[in-house]
């Protein structure tokens, strides 16, 4: 018989009380686990979805010349064909330290061409990466599949008076209009998109790239770091973060996290109150028992150890059950909350250990005053009979 036997036997033989205490704390921990896991899983889902909304890093040539606008973004020296990025430099982008955060690299070559007596900007793109990056594109017709096909922006198609299936002539070569973009409201509406290599040939820029758009995954959003890393690899280029996109992503995630942690804090507080009230009630109910302990020679510290050990055992159990049930709830809720079946539940060991540690901290802190109160009980008062 040791002090811990008293705590264990009390919990074992007062199952209803123990269950109430455990459930009280467990619900709190489960809610936190669910919210944190949902936040993490949904953040990851949101990041993935947001990455589909375009680039957040732009690589352009270094130039002091007049700039050309590309959707409000300055493209240094594009017009004047200066120091363009070389195609072999593209491999360097994917060799940076944070390369795991790179989702898509979309190189482009730009140049003005005359089509049907109209000046139009021709953009050579790698259609696979371009379509991955611009998933909002609606194409009437199809995306170009070979070097003899082009894709037209809606305004460009109107200006040239062509539809998908028609033919346009660029620099003496005939191209089939594979598809026409639905209006995007962006610079894309006025452009003619051709396969990268073909455009390079047409513009006389073989092996050269005018600009590179990079979509970076926003896990932790190390965009600033990535910009520095790419700039180190490409000293000839100007690398800039598209701050608006980065900041809006961060803002959306931050708001969601703050809401979740706010709710979690309230739930923890309620859990702590339940533990406090139940432990206090338990101590008051056990007044006589504590009086007996004190009468037979238990020190105050012994009484505190008995009460706190009970709190530790209950909290540990509540932490384990709370984690398990919280993850279960998150698994059930995620498909509804994430509005899609692609969201993946994130199993994080930090959440597992964190929830158990939190249960212990909350359980023990909430039991500290009841334990202190118990240890200070006057044995004569407690026993009354004496």
């Amino acid at each position, binding site marked *: *018989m*040791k*002090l811990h*036997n*008293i705590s264990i*036997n*009390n919990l*074992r*033989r*007062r199952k209803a009380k123990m269950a109430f205490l455990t459930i009280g704390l467990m619900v709190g921990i489960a809610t936190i686990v669910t919210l944190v896991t949902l936040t993490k899983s949904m953040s990851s889902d949101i990041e993935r979805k947001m990455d589909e909304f375009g680039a957040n890093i732009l690589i352009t040539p270094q130039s002091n010349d007049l700039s050309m606008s590309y959707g409000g973004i300055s493209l240094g020296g594009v017009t004047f064909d200066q120091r363009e990025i070389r195609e072999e430099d593209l491999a360097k982008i994917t060799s940076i330290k944070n390369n795991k955060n790179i989702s898509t690299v979309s190189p482009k070559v730009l140049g003005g061409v005359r089509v049907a007596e109209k000046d139009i900007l021709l953009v050579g793109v790698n259609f696979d990466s371009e379509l991955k990056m611009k998933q909002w594109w609606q194409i009437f017709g199809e995306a170009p599949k070979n070097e003899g096909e082009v894709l037209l922006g809606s305004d460009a198609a109107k200006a040239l008076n062509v539809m998908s299936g028609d033919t346009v002539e660029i620099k003496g070569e005939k191209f089939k209009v594979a598809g026409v973009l639905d209006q995007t409201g962006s610079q894309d509406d006025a452009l003619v998109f051709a396969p990268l290599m073909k455009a390079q040939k047409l513009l006389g820029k073989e092996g050269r790239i005018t600009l590179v758009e990079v979509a970076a995954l926003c896990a932790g959003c190390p965009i600033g770091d990535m910009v520095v890393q790419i700039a180190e690899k490409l000293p000839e280029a100007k690398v800039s973060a598209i701050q608006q996109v980065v900041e809006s992503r961060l803002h959306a995630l931050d708001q969601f996290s703050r809401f979740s942690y706010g709710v979690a804090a309230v739930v923890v507080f309620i859990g702590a109150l339940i533990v406090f009230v139940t432990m206090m009630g338990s101590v008051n109910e056990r007044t*006589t*028992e504590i*009086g*007996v*302990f*004190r*009468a*037979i*020679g*238990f*020190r*105050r*510290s*012994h009484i505190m150890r008995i009460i706190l050990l009970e709190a530790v055992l209950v909290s540990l159990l509540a932490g384990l059950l709370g984690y398990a049930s919280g993850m279960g709830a998150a698994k059930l809720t995620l498909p509804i909350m994430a509005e899609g079946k692609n969201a993946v539940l994130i199993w994080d060991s930090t959440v597992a250990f964190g929830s158990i540690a939190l249960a212990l901290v909350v359980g023990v802190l909430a039991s500290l005053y009841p334990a202190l109160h118990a240890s200070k009980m*006057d*044995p*004569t008062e407690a*026993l009354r*009979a*004496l």
Partner: protein
Amino acid sequence: MALIEISNLKKYYVSGDDTVEALRGVDIAIEAGEFITIMGQSGSGKSTLLSVLGGMNHPTEGEVEMAGVKLYDLSGEKLADFRAGNLGFVFQSFHLIPYLTAMENVMLPLAIANMKGAQKRGAAKEALERVGLGNKVDRLPNQLSGGEQERVAIARAIVNSPHILLADEPTGNLDSKTSEEVMGLFRELNQTGQTVVMVTHNAENCQYADRTIQLKDGMVV
């Protein structure tokens, strides 16, 4: 020198403007091996005297010296240690811990003792056998009769071989036949050298004692 020496013991309870003089200068000496009963009417101060003797109720004035130790010179925690090593308590309502078996209840005072588990179990088994409950060690208190619960309480009080066994109305909740058995048990324990100090209002219990101290209005008469 007597085992217990109480000199000029006074205990006043102050509540607002009222002061209740529970003990008004009590002098008692109790020798080792004595069986003492303390008698008195309700409010005579006998329970206060027992709680002061048990090191749980600081006197307003006077001294309690037990086995050469001035009890109330000890700090709170040292006083708890003294109780653990030297005193055994039997309470009127038994006050067994409801979620512990008879064996575990008896082992309770040993939970804080520096002894091996087997030694503790051996001592508890022996104490339960002394009170005639060697065959009910695994019963919970609610599975025992009143008399049996009283015996477990006595076994718990003697398991650490205390110098003094203090009992507060131990037969107060028992029928007359069970009371006789319990008093016989106290007598047997006393005959093995155990000092017993018992508070009772039942005059019949006094026949088992070596000496009876009568209290009236907080004084020995």
